[in-house]
């Protein structure tokens, strides 16, 4: 998502005389550094933002993009590095997989793709689905490289054949359920329609409850990751810099306004026992899958027992992470911020946070 923001931003700041093309990873098999949905914006002056690999394919994609722009014609390039072929780009760089990249020139008069991408990163916290045509029968309503944003079954009528709308609709929901982006094939009367179904989950959202100086590195790191940060603090107690880097700053009284979804995590880090204690049941009362509390375990246990003495049962659930953070030996506020976001990422991805070298399965889940 951050990549898309960077691409949209770069396109908007581009010199109007510059031509550009978008390269999108639409299919991956085996190992690859970037997954489906990875993108780069390529400009005809040889510069680019974003990325489709760890550097092995960018140079070639640049050349293909120059040709696509010169011909004003999209193209799909497949890099197969599974066979030891010295004449194949990518071999000798340690990649071992197949990756297909759609390269579509952007029409400066109607940069539909950029507009659609922009609409996906506009800040609304909901799952977005983009459908990009990879292959279409002759005379189809939408041709290779063209894109629509899914907005209910009616939006699929753009494909010009209402009979297939429900089939595509079912397909989309299956992909959304898995949170996966992948190509799919639909049978049209005129032939096969190949689509890249791209499911864009909302970015992780961190609700930071605290206003001490250690909030700053945490919010900076959240920004760097392209996530969203909401700070719950007294606006008089924090500096302008924090306003600028956070997506929202909410006074404690407006706690109920915070939008919580299954990609939201709370971090209680007030450094004040009573504040954290007051916030604990409120955070747990939301549906957030992650509630972290900074500080030693006994401190949180004391909060729970004090609440119990006052007749409030704070349920001890898997969602409660106290002390918050992965055990990486963090000591400075910056390192602690790293430990916190790492644990949140672990939970949201359903992983265990241990070293990849201990992992038996492939790093990325395969289809």
């Amino acid at each position, binding site marked *: 998502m951050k990549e898309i923001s960077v691409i949209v931003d770069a396109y908007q700041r581009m010199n109007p005389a510059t031509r550009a093309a978008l390269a999108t990873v639409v299919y991956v098999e085996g190992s690859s550094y970037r997954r489906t949905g990875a993108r780069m914006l390529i400009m*005809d*002056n*040889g*510069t680019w933002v974003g990325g489709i690999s760890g550097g092995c394919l960018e*140079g070639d994609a*640049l050349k293909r993009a*120059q040709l696509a*722009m*010169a*011909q*004003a014609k999209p193209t799909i390039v497949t890099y197969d590095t599974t066979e030891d072929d*010295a*004449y*194949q*780009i*990518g*071999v*000798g760089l340690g990649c071992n997989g197949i990756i297909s990249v759609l390269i579509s020139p952007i029409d400066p008069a109607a940069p539909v793709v950029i507009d659609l991408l922009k609409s996906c990163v506009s800040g609304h916290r909901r799952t977005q689905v983009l459908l990009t045509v990879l292959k279409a029968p002759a005379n189809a309503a939408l041709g290779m490289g063209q894109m629509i944003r899914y907005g209910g079954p009616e939006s699929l009528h753009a494909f010009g054949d209402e009979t297939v709308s429900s089939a595509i609709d079912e397909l989309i929901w299956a992909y959304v359920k898995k949170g996966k982006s992948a190509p799919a094939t639909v049978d049209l009367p005129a032939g096969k329609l190949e689509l890249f179904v791209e499911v864009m989950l909302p970015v992780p959202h961190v609700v930071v409850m605290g206003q001490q100086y250690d909030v700053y590195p945490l919010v900076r790191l959240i920004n760097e990751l392209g996530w969203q940060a909401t700070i719950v603090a007294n606006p008089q107690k924090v500096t302008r810099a924090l306003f600028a880097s956070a997506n929202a700053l909410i006074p404690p009284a407006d706690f109920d306004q915070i939008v919580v979804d299954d990609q939201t995590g709370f971090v209680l880090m007030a450094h004040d026992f009573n504040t954290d204690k007051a916030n604990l049941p409120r955070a747990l009362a939301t549906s957030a899958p992650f509630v972290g509390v900074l500080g030693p375990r006994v401190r949180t246990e004391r909060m729970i027992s004090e609440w119990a003495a006052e007749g409030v049962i704070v349920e001890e659930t898997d969602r409660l992470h106290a002390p918050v953070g992965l055990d990486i030996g963090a000591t400075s506020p910056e390192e602690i911020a790293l430990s916190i976001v790492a644990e949140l990422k672990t939970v949201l991805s359903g992983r265990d946070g241990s070293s990849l070298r201990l992992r038996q399965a492939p790093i990325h889940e395969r289809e």
Partner: protein
Amino acid sequence: MLYPIYLDHNATTPVDLRVLNAMLPYFTEHFGNAASRTHVFGLKAEDAVAYARQQLANLLGTAPTELVFTSGATEAINLALKGVFEANQHRGNHIVTVKTEHKAVLDVCEHLAQLGAEITYLQPDADGLITPEQVAAALTPATILVSVMWANNETGTIQPIEAIAEVVHRHGALFHTDATQAAGKLPIDLSRTTIDLLNLSGHKLYGPKGIGALYVRRKTPLTAQQDGGRHERGRRSGTLNVPGIVGLGAAAELAQAEIATEAPRLATLRNRLEAGILAQFPDVHVNGSRAHRLPNTTNLAFPNVDGEALLMSLNEIAISNGSACTAATTDPSHVLKALGLSDDLAYASVRFSLGRTTSEADIDITVAHVISVISRLRMVGA
């Protein structure tokens, strides 16, 4: 299709429309096999081939019977080097060539080395030149062949070919020159030299791709590398590429007619390009000899810029660094390395090769574009 300004004529050239028009009837109406002796279809084709052979002979100052048509320069070089090696094994196994030759020569030498040839690779000076004395010093009683390219494809550097051929001839060895870049760009008169073998390619002189020729001096011992029908006096079997040959002949005639005006025109444009860039960036230097150079070529080294970024950023012009190759990986140019350039500088070197369609306006746009790109890249690097 939106194309940039084409300044890569040493890689290939567009087919001249006059050449194309000469060729077209030989695809359809005059489709005969030049080896068919029993009807006019064949006779017409044979006639066209004979005419084209004469056109090419005129360009080179040779007899038509000394020309062998091939699929291109690479095949002609293979035939020359392998053919001489095979036919002269009883006389020796030593071949002398130069480090800055095209891969079409170097790779064949490597192949022959595996078959028992001894290869000496001469080291040119920093300007890319070798001397007849250097060649003389390398000759041994076992030397059967010396191969030195007339003009280098990357730098345009012209070797003292006639003097070298003379040295080799006096020694009693055969002399081959790869004239792929020289043909059509420099006056060549083989009747006044002791060159034994010379190859060229159609598509470098506004003819079609897929056709080339090897000049083989009368009585030069040469074993065919492709058998099957004894075409081309048994030196290169296979049905003749009649449209291609007609195209090569027409291209040769045009080159000969225009060389006197075209060479100085290109030199003026090339010098304008060079002067415009060097005036802005005094640290840019010209690779290869400036005094002995093809009129259409300049190879410039741009210090303090990344070569890859440079080539990708020069998007308004079609240029190259090093010869077009087929492998996916790019190594720094072996020619520039032989001239003593570092890897970084070899990568950051650009060959501009002008041609028949290049105009003064093209050059002025190119100079402005290069200046703006280099300025931008250097700012980023700073």
